[in-house]
């Protein structure tokens, strides 16, 4: 299985990940190599095997519906790239 430069660009867009144009080919080569490695998985018949998402197979723990977190807005916004009036700023989204 091999990926083309266009495939890499598509995947990078899905991940909102900027890739330098001169690196696209090398990512295509590396990812194709990884996919080759993964085709080994097809050697094993896994029909009827239940997928394992988590080592402990545990259920999500529940807790009482009580407030446990306090307002840390100022503390958290102190390390943000750009804030104003308690809001995180991004480039204009709605015209």
């Amino acid at each position, binding site marked *: 299985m091999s*990926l083309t430069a266009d*495939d*890499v660009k598509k*995947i*990078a*867009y*899905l*991940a*909102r*990940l*900027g*890739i*330098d144009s001169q*690196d696209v080919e090398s*990512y295509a080569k*590396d*990812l194709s*190599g*990884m996919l080759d*490695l*993964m*085709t*080994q*998985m*097809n*050697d*094993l018949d*896994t029909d009827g*095997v*239940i*997928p*394992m*998402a*988590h*080592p*402990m197979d*545990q259920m*999500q*723990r529940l*807790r009482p519906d009580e407030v446990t977190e306090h307002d*840390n807005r100022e*503390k*958290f916004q*102190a*390390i*943000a*790239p*750009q804030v104003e009036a308690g809001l*995180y700023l*991004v*480039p*204009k*989204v709605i015209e």
Partner: protein
Amino acid sequence: MHNKTIADLAKGLRSGEFSSVELTQSFLDRIKQHSSLNSYITVTEDLALQEAMAADARIAKGDAELLTGIPIAQKDIFCTQGVKTTCGSKMLDNFIAPYDATVIEKFNNAGAVMLGKLNMDEFAMGSSNETSYYGAVKNPWDTNTVPGGSSGGSAAAVAARLAVCATGTDTGGSIRQPAALCGITGLKPTYGRVSRYGMIAYASSLDQGGPMARSAEDAAIMLQTMAGFDEKDSTSVDQPVPDYLAGLNNNLDGLKIGLPKEFFGEGLNSDVAATLDAAINEYRKLGAEVKEISMPNLKLAIPAYYVIAPAECSANLSRFDGVRYGYRCENPADLTDLYTRSRGEGFGKEVKRRILMGTYALSAGYYDAYYIKAQKIRRLISEDFKNALAEVDVIMGPVTPSTAFGIGEKIGNPIEMYLSDIYTIAINLAGVPAMSVPAGFVDGKPVGLQVIGNYFAEDRLLNIAHRYQQVTDWHQQTPKGFE
């Protein structure tokens, strides 16, 4: 002072032979003297001396614990309030953590002194510490070689006596492999044993923090502080923490050791294999019985891991968006440009490779073929461990196929780098605990023996490692120039 065990240092602190301030200062001096190893990203000198003064006061009052006043260092993946926490990435080069990880809080409560934050592969993705934004770490046994990764700074610092002990994290071998390549003792606990709260996530169903120390006894002391249920970690396991020191000296009569034939075949360096044989013979002398076992699905651990870990990584690292914290690109044209360039400029090549791989594996049309298939194989691998550990008490094998490789040797070939994790990755998929124990040298470079146990059998692993360290001195060797 820097060659003593935690227990001896604790005694020295209590008897007044030296103070924590003196001990801490001596380590700070060593860190400066050996800064060319590049094992630290941040040295917290002032904070360390303040903590040491507080520890001395606590010791004088008589309410000290074993770790009170002991200078340790933290992998830079653990959030430390008020201290830069980079995860080895440009993305977090400006990130001052607003809170402490649970592991950090526990060491603080124990009165341990933090010397600084240790270098690591970027976001813990790497096996050589070469993917760090802050540059490669050198292995103190041979500074032309890598210390392993991703906890390479931790392993190098402990081996070079630049900290008494250190924390590490292990997603596919990141505690055990650097411990092996640097000749120290490292333990990856059972998944869920140590809280992941405040430990920057790479692959959440695999990540686990653990101790990296000179001896099993020191690792036991560390784990005693680190382990335990934490309601802030949704996958923390609510099980009592045993006394890890109590059983260290239990005898090993009748211990059943299984050697998977899949671990000793093609690909294992013959000198490493001979070193491991000698170590296993030592266990026979200690009363253990050794038998060959088979774990047929181990060979698929690497492909399954390189689907599951990147898939989880692509989801976890989506939080780095240039909006709330971390790196933001200059003059973004619009929101998509802000995301794309902040992430493109903030992440290094290996991280990008894994985000791309994970995004692909989870994308429409490929999810079943890759992600579900890998999770099914994960179940089969985990059953191999369950079956083997019903037959034997522990499994032993290599940690790495060879000793430390050269800086620059594998970084250009990611697949070759991935294959060097062949003996460690399956353990994370199953979630069982495993250790790397110093077992000898090949051409002056350390070799680690891997000891793998059943879920929550950390006490047994530490006991097995400790008994071996009573009859061998591999773990006490110091690299030349760092005595």
